[in-house]
């Protein structure tokens, strides 16, 4: 391990972000490359910790910060944090390399690189945090950066609105998280993970469940689970690199990390809590996958697929077994790789075609062979086709469901399989609409060519990682077995026949119709929405199960209504003000006297 690497891993990007405005004064190119360099250095630090944790090195370094709250600032080095940090810094570095080409002709790049570095630094800081307050602070910083980055193109009003939406919706979750942290602190007197772990045994089960559910509320917001997923599809208004970062590495993984981390802190999880986690995860996985089927925006397809895949991770965590825990982390790694790949490919496509609507693409296979090939790899990984990494991890999740058995296990297995069927369908649909068939008329007069090499190199790196990483399961299990010893059993890639055959069957069930409809075109896609029932379903899917309209109606409109009504109270007439004075006085007297009589 390089000296001080747990600290420097997040210090370097954050210091880098402060240097960005200064470097920008010197030279634009210098700023771009230095930003990449800072994250690359950070990833060197994070990777340097990997060998140590492999050899069983654990550390929890603390420096006193606010003695009034008995609060320290500290870093936690254990397999989970080091693994996550390495993933984030690695993907972050690739995305920054890619942005040098992708964002080259944009305005306001200083702002862009400032927040990108802060985003990555904040996420690594979140992961390395050894106490809840530090985690919460970085959690909010990540939210702030997402707000600034999603609204990067501030001249588009939708982008600014999407940024605000992301920030506000995730903050609804954050409020739960904060309350959970405080209730926990109030009952244990500690913020640090290690101390809470020691005193968690004394807490009553109902209290623990409440706290855990509140913490999970925070994860729901950040990881875009039902019912707070509405911000993620809109967040596609930001630059594609930002979406890639949000989906693959930083923002949405924070929620999964939090749930995984709490699972290591509290050894005995209540079944109610697990049921909620698993239920939310399964429902999300299914709903998001169906929504991905109905949208024509290539980035929104990927966004829904992220929500769905995060749902997989959540319900794997909700199994409550160490195997499920491991499977979720394994899937997190796979997902990070293939989702980054898919987003960057989509970015390349958007970069060239200038549109996000898949109906206006098509036939790009001929012009962008590298992008096409890598996108295919990503899509195959996403839809869990062997031997790509998505297959190994998703299969592990389903196997763990199967192994758990019982009502929940089989139900979850069923939900997972159903989702898998839909997943391959929308993956094929996306590939076919974008790359196969004929170019749409819109593209006729555009000069179509392959993206520049600074963009394709990260694609190739990520694609090869997608192929390889699935086979890393044994060593990954070895690494993680320090968190839960039982995980060591998973270091052999033993595959159970029944779940495997079911999931392979699911691939065929989902893949074949999609292939017929979108590739072979033997049935026109429009024909699917002709019946009145299927039209209704289609409308439901396009509108995202009306979650958005519901929130808009109840919360936004409701708040505005109340606000308008309350503003009427300010009549501007002095007499009325004094009348309010008298009434307020009498009200206070009433309250005080009822308190005196023991009323309250």
């Amino acid at each position, binding site marked *: 391990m390089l000296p001080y690497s747990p600290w420097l891993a997040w210090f370097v990007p954050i210091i880098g972000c402060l240097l960005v405005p200064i470097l920008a004064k010197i030279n634009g190119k210098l700023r771009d490359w230095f930003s990449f360099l800072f994250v690359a250095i950070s990833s060197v630090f994070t990777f340097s910790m990997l060998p140590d944790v492999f050899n069983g090195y654990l550390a929890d370094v603390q420096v006193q910060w606010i003695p009034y709250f008995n609060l320290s600032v500290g870093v936690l080095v254990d397999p989970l944090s080091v693994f996550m940090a390495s993933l984030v810094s690695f993907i972050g570095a690739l995305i920054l390399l890619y942005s040098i080409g992708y964002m080259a002709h944009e305005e306001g790049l200083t702002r862009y690189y400032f927040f990108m570095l802060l985003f990555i630094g904040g996420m690594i800081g979140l992961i390395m945090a050894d106490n809840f307050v530090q985690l919460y602070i970085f959690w909010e910083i990540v939210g702030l950066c997402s707000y600034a980055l999603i609204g990067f193109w501030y001249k588009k009003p939708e982008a600014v609105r999407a940024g605000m939406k992301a920030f506000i919706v995730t903050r609804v979750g954050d409020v739960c998280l904060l309350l959970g942290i405080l209730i926990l602190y109030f009952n244990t007197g500690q913020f640090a993970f290690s101390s809470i772990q020691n005193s968690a045994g004394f807490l009553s089960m109902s209290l623990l469940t409440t706290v855990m559910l509140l913490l999970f509320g925070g994860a729901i917001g950040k990881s875009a689970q039902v019912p707070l997923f509405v911000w993620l599809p809109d967040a596609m208004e930001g630059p594609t690199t930002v979406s890639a970062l949000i989906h693959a590495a930083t923002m949405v993984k924070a929620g999964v990390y939090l749930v995984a981390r709490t699972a290591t802190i509290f050894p005995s999880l209540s079944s109610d809590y697990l049921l909620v986690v698993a239920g939310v995860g399964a429902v999300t996985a299914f709903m998001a996958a169906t929504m991905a089927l109905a949208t024509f925006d290539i980035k929104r397809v990927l966004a829904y697929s992220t929500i769905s895949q995060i749902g997989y991770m959540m319900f794997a965590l909700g199994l409550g077994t160490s195997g499920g825990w491991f499977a979720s982390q394994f899937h997190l790694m796979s997902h990070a790789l293939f989702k980054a790949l898919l987003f960057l490919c989509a970015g390349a496509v958007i970069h060239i075609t200038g549109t996000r609507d898949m109906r206006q693409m098509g036939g790009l296979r001929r012009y962008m062979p590298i992008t096409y090939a890598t996108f295919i790899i990503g899509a195959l990984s996403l839809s869990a086709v062997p031997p790509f990494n998505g297959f190994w991890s998703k299969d592990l999740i389903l196997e763990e469901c199967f192994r758990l058995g019982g009502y929940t296990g089989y139900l979850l297995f069923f939900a997972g399989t159903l989702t898998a069927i839909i997943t391959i369908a929308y993956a094929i649909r996306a590939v076919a609409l974008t790359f196969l068939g004929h170019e749409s008329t819109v593209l006729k007069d555009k000069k179509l060519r392959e993206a520049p090499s600074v963009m394709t190199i990260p694609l190739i790196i990520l694609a090869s990682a997608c192929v390889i990483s699935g086979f890393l399961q044994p060593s990954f299990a070895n690494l993680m077995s320090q968190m839960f010893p039982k995980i060591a059993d998973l270091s052999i890639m033993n595959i159970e026949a029944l779940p495997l055959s079911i999931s392979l069957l699911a691939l065929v069930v989902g893949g074949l119709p999609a292939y017929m409809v979108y590739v072979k075109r033997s049935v026109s896609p429009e024909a699917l929405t002709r019946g009145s029932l299927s039209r209704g379903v289609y409308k439901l899917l396009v509108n995202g199960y009306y979650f958005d309209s519901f929130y808009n109606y109840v919360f936004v409109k409701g708040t505005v209504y109340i606000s308008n009504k309350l*503003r*009427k109270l*300010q*009549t*501007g*007439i*002095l*007499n*009325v003000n*004094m*009348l309010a*004075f*008298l009434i307020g006085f009498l009200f206070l007297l009433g309250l005080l006297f009822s308190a005196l009589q023991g009323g309250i």
Partner: protein
Amino acid sequence: MIPLSYYLAFTAILYIVGIYCLATKRNMIRLVLGIEILVNAANLNFIILSANWKTGFVDPFAHSIVIISTALAGCISAVALTIVVYAYRHYGTLDARKLRRLRG
């Protein structure tokens, strides 16, 4: 001798009259008078209670307070009346209810 309660009721009513004046009267100068009534209610209360201590003893403490607070009330009225002058220049009326361009 009149019991203390009567005096207290009197100051309480005086206070309410002051607030009533502020809450209903339209003339700005009357509003300034309303403030004076409020302060005087408090002052009277001080005087009354200074004699409540012990029979035949009147506390000079309360009296000194009243002397000072009377002067303070005068200061407030002075400032209030200068503002009223300008309000009249801007609005052309002494009706306090016409001063309602600021609202919402």
